[in-house]
């Protein structure tokens, strides 16, 4: 199924303005067939507007949107083979679960017998067999979520859009649904486009992630690429914790004034006497603050030039007593050159 040469969704210079506000600004994007693709960004970054334009609820002010090669920019939602799982689920309160799931087939005049059969299959897929007769109001949040998923998937859409579908669930259920969504996606082989503001969620589930900021895409890449090689200060800051170093200090350490980022867990905390290998970047510093977090300890180290770096060390041997007494110690920080990513600016 995963045919990477087929483009499922293509944005060509798509913009969407609401009055003066540029919700989406000149976005170019290619999403491959069968991909689990996430649109990640803070609220108001344009990710949901992009999703709504793919679904057909909104029309681009400029640019074109193609679905599997067909220009759909002006088509209404019911003319596109795309389905959506809404943030608030948008189940029809006046219909029972079975009728909700069968809705897409019903409006396409699929015979009743077949409808019932496929509803059963879908209920099984989302582990809700036997719930067909219930009303949405009698379901829990997680169950409504599954009904919404089944209602979309029964139509065999080419692309499934998910608009922060896990936002309303509690943490435990959310983690469970993340795993489940991913496995369902593998089984049905449909392109999933997943909108979220939760970077952890995006990293856990996605094949690729587009990071949105102020109506533009800052970076597109695999979760590892996004995390290890953030392309901009925004991405470095939004996805995970990051140390940004620029100016004079950057020049002395890397030979370029360009701002770079290094992740806290990539930094090695050594004693002042250590002699690290030559492909390491080394800098002296003083531990200003220590936070013991059980699994690991977070240090705040001030290096030359008055810059604070966050360093995280796993507590393999350290105990809390030792960790906390490290405050004020002189240390030598070092990290591998490969772990430096230039973020420009």
């Amino acid at each position, binding site marked *: 199924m995963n045919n990477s040469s087929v483009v499922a969704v293509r944005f060509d210079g798509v913009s969407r303005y609401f009055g003066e506000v540029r919700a989406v600004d000149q976005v170019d994007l290619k999403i491959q067939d069968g991909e689990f693709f996430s649109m990640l960004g803070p609220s108001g970054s344009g990710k949901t507007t992009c999703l709504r334009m793919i*679904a057909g609820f909104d029309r681009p002010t400029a640019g074109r949107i193609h679905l599997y090669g067909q220009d759909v920019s002006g088509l*209404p939602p*019911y003319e596109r083979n795309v*389905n*959506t799982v809404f943030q608030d689920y948008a189940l*029809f309160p*006046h219909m029972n679960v079975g009728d909700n799931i069968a809705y897409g087939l019903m409006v396409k005049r699929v015979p009743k017998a077949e409808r019932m059969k496929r509803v059963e299959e879908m209920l099984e897929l989302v582990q809700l067999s036997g719930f067909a007769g219930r009303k*949405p109001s009698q379901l829990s949040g997680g169950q409504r979520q599954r009904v919404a998923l089944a209602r979309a998937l029964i139509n065999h859409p080419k692309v499934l859009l998910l608009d922060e579908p896990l936002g309303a669930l509690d943490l435990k259920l959310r983690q469970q649904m993340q795993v489940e969504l991913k496995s369902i996606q593998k089984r049905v082989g449909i392109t999933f486009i997943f909108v979220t503001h939760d970077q952890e969620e995006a990293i856990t589930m996605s094949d690729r992630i587009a990071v949105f900021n102020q109506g533009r895409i800052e970076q597109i890449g695999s979760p590892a690429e996004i995390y290890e090689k953030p392309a901009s200060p925004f991405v470095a800051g939004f996805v995970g914790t990051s140390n940004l170093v620029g100016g004079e200090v950057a020049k002395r350490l890397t030979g370029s004034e360009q701002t770079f980022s290094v992740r806290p867990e990539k930094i090695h905390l050594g004693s002042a006497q250590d002699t690290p290998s030559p492909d390491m970047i080394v800098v002296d510093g003083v531990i200003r603050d220590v936070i013991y977090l059980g699994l690991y300890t977070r240090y705040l180290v001030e290096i030359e030039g008055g810059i604070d770096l966050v360093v995280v060390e796993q507590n393999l041997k350290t105990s809390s007593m030792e960790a906390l007494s490290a405050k004020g110690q002189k240390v030598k920080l070092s990290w591998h050159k490969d772990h430096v990513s230039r973020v420009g600016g």
Partner: protein
Amino acid sequence: MPSKSSSTPKASWGLKLASLGTLLFLHVPIFIIFLYTLTPDERTYTFPLPGITFKWFGVALQRADLWRALKLSLQVAAVATFAALVLGTLAAAAVYRSKFFGREAISFLLVLPIALPGIVTGIALRTAIGGLDIPFSYWTIVIGHATFCVVVVYNNVLARFRRMQGSQIEASMDLGANSFQTFRYVVFPNIATALLAGGMLAFALSFDEVIVTTFTAGQQTTLPIWIFSQLTRPRDRPVTNVVAMFVMLITFLPIVFAQKLSAASSDTEGEPK
């Protein structure tokens, strides 16, 4: 009396009594009419009743003028309600689905006919009908009634639209339903009880309206106009009692039903049980 009320969670006896008194004042008078339908006294409203008789129900049934008036009232109310349903729903849908310049003005214009005293609407229509030399007819009554019935439907339907959960319309279109299917399977079931409630209130309002009708009916007699003529020049007292009771009952049931419908739907946030 208010001065005896207290800020403790339990109401004082004075407050309870005063509240009960007001409630009785609001509702008891109606039952007096029911009592008087049984009086054998034809000339006065003597109390206590000199006896008990059921004959006036039979007499009222025989009155051709009453049947004509009833028929006219029902026809007017039916057509005015239908017009109000169409116009009110359209206006509510327009105001709900988009933000546009002058939305406020529309609510204002629609509420004006019930906010202004009925005599204003009545005399205004009267001058227009007179000025345009339109002959008084069944339609002049309907046109008058529709002006103040529209807002009733509009308010009910708009309130329901606003309570409608989330993105149901988008979800329906997303699942392949065109606008017409979306209306039939999603929008209509959502607003059906609001239409019913609004329609019944509009019907009740039109059925017993007298002030505007006085100015738009010409020589025609609706049931309320018949009662009004009896109020100023009583000729058929016992029959009037029967008619008054009948009008009360015919409007009471839809009103209570409509109130319960609205209350029920706001309890469950638009989710029919």
